[in-house]
Structure formats: C-alpha cells, structure tokens
C-alpha cells in the first residue's frame, strides 16, 4: 500500500464556510446594529464564538492535507500531527445526524497514538473508509479497547475487529 493524499472536497468546505458565515452574521449583526439586552447579548456572543470557532476549524481543514500510509496517518497543515498505527492508543467512531430519525448523518473518526494529538476526520473526507479500515486493523493489532458505539458503527461499514466482541 502506497501513501495516499486525502483532502476534504471543495463542495463540503464551501458548505461549511457558508454555515459558519451565516452563523457569524446572524449572531454578530444584532450585537453590532441593535441595543441588545445584556443576557441576550451574552447568548448571542456565545453563538458568535461557536460559529467563529467553526469558521476557524473549516479554514484549518481547508489548509490540511492528510497522508495515509501503511505506517501512519499524517495531517499536514497549520495544526499538523501524526498518528502512528503501531502506537495507536485511542479510536472512536461516532455517527451524527441532525434529523429526528437519525438518517442522512455523517461519521466522525477520532484516532491518536501515544504522545500525539487526537486527529478527527469526518466521513466527507475522500478516502474516509480506507482510514477507518486501516485504523481498525491497527486497533486489532494494538488491542485498543473500542466502545459499544464504535463497534456498532464499524460493523455498519462492514468492518469487524477481532478481539473486540461484546463483553459484560
């Protein structure tokens, strides 16, 4: 297996930029243009902070390139870090959906190796399945304990990790 360069698709990034900008404007405009009650101002300020943080995260994703290799997952960019598969010590695969019936959602993988920072990637990233499959192999090899939700989500992607059967 050779190294593969992975990036978030332009379409996803544009959608996230739009979300962040909409939120920043909706929360920021009343603060700038109106005489806002202090409690509501605190609420709007919290919303503004949330969307500003999301804007920053989207910009970071925009500038980040992920390199998946047999030995590691490298995030190259302003907040770069490396996850070494043979030293994997954290793995969590979560599913999120904004719909009440939890359909049309997205996955998020969080992986980290000893001494390194946690890397979180969403399923909109090109080659997400390959990263999850490699992380699952590494988890099997290193014996990282996986949570209920992670195991269920891995199964939904057709990935089974040996040695991670349900325990009571």
């Amino acid at each position, binding site marked *: 297996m050779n190294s593969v360069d992975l990036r978030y698709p332009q379409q996803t990034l544009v959608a996230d930029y739009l979300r962040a900008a909409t939120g920043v404007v909706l929360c920021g405009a009343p603060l700038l243009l109106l*005489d806002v*009650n202090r409690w509501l101002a605190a609420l709007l300020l919290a919303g503004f902070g949330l969307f500003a943080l999301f804007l920053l995260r989207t910009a970071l994703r925009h500038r980040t390139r992920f390199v998946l290799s047999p030995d590691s997952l490298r995030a190259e960019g302003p907040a770069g870090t490396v996850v070494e598969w043979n030293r994997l010590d954290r793995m969590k695969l979560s599913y999120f959906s*904004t719909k009440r*019936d939890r*359909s049309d959602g997205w996955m998020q993988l969080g992986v980290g190796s000893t001494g390194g920072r946690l890397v979180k990637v969403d399923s909109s990233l090109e080659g997400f399945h390959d990263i999850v499959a490699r992380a699952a192999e590494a988890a099997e090899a290193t014996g990282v304990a996986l949570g209920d939700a992670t195991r269920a989500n891995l199964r939904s992607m057709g990935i089974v990790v040996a040695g991670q059967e349900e325990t*009571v």
Partner: protein
Amino acid sequence: MLHFIVRRVLLMIPTLFVISALVYFIIDLPPGDCVTSQIEELLARGDPDAHQRAEELRQLYGLNLPLWQRYLEWVAGIFRWDFGLSCQDTVPVADLISERMMLTIVMETCTIIFIWVVSFVIGVYAATHQYRWGDYVASFIGFIGLSIPNFLLALVLLYVGKVYFGLSIGGLMDPEYIDQPLSWGKVVSVMQHLIIPVVVIGMSGTAGMIRRLRANLLDELQKQYVVTGRAKGLPPMRLLVKYPLRHAINPFVADIGGLLPDVISGSVIVSVVLSLPTTGPMLLSALKTQDVNLAATFLLFVAALTVVGMLISDLALAALDPRIRFGAGSEK
C-alpha cells in the same frame, strides 16, 4: 461534535423566526383586536366618547400600523427585552411576565424533578420485579395517571381537601404573603402549596415515563448479554446498571426536549382550576382578548424552550449513544 452543534444551532435560528411570525400572525387572524372588547364595555355603559377612546387606544398599542410593521417592531424589541405593551393593563409585557415567570419556573422545575425521581424509581422497580405485587401496583398507578385528566384530579383533590381535611388548596402561597417581598415564611408557604400542584401536574408525565422506562428496561433485561452476564455470576446491581439501565434511560434524555417548554407554559388548565398565579392563566386570557404582544411573547418563550430542549436532548443523546441506526430512514 462541533459540526453537529453548529448544524443544529443553525437550524434553530430560522425555526424560531418562522415560529415567531406564525404565532404573531395567527393570534391576529380573528376579526377585531384587543381594543374591541374594551370598547364594547364602554359602549354598553353608554360612554359617548367610546369611539374616540378606541382610536386613542389603537394608537397607543400601535394597532393602526400594518401587521407586518408591528411584527418587525416586536421582533426588534425582543433584543432589548422589550416586548411592547400589553392591552390588558397597559403595562409593558416584560414587567407583566416577570411577576409570574419565577413562580411558574419554580413550580414546573419541581414537577420535572418529581416526574424524573418518582418514575425512575418506580419504573426500575417494576421492570426488575415483573409480575409481582409491586409491578402490579406500579402498573395500576401508571394506568390511573394516564387515564385521569390532570384538571379532574385537581378538582377531586380540591373537593377532598376542603370537605374532609378543611384545607384550602388553591393558590401558591398563603394570602398574607401575596405581593409581599421574599421572606423565609413566604418560601415555606410556597413549598407547602406546591405539593398538590406538583403531584397533579406531574401525575400523567410520571405515569407515561414509568410505562416507557419499564418497557425499555424489560426489553434490555431479556437480551442475550444480560443472560450471559447473569450466568457468569455478575452481581445483580452491576448487571443492571452497567448496560441495560444505560440503554433504557435514553427516553429520559430524549424527553428533556418535551419537558422544558412546560416550564413556561405553566399547565394552563390545572393552573386555572387551582387558581395558581402562574403564566398559564395569563396566556389563556391573552389569547382570549387577542393581546397579541403578550400571547406571542409567551408562545415565543415556549417555542424557544422547545428548540433549546430538543438541542440539549439531541446533544446528550449524541454524546451518550453516537451509533448509526439501521433502517433509520424508514423509522417514524
């Protein structure tokens, strides 16, 4: 998780705007306005200046402006915590609701705690003692609570309290504390008067929650992993708490969304029956008199708490159980 929070919060903002517009326009839909009934009273009394007075009142309340303009002014005022004038007493809505909001929040918060604590204990007991005396009693209470309307229970308790115990159950405090500053005696009086409303309002919620918790926990307790755990000799309490209970409490978390709006809505009918000085009767009266500013403000609070409650329960569920659901698209 940040992505999830951002998307959910972003959905909340237009939702609240749409709800506020719908509420404002719908309350104004019936013919006439809040001045109409006041003028009819003046005319009935033979006041010759009734029509001139009506015009003055319409100008004071801004009722001569187009509806969309009144709506925009009301929305802009929300940011300043100024919800306009109420037609009922010609006082600012903000002053009017603050008087009752605190009592409503206290009463409904106590009700929510009552529902959670009682239903959790009884629900777990009923599930772990299926088809025993305790389970039958819990199920009986559950069915009674579900089938008796709250206001009827309130009437029965009023009657029983008055006739058999000589107690006056109505109100949320003794008459001598009404309109008095906060004191220890007032707090004690409120607490004493809270018991009956809390039990009455919380009865159906508790009964429903007991049924759901019992059913969910029974489902979990019959699963293979519990049987295996039991066969391996795990202590019963640990076997119950570690997985089945964690999965079975999902409805508790999901119900936060439904419970929060109750904190403001103030259980209208029960409050009327028990003469409780909460927001409920005020909302009812505002709707009857077409007091658009007051009614729309209450309903906006209810809507805001509903969407915030939904957000909290969705976040808690996403944090507790971030699993994919197979066939989610077909689940309704």
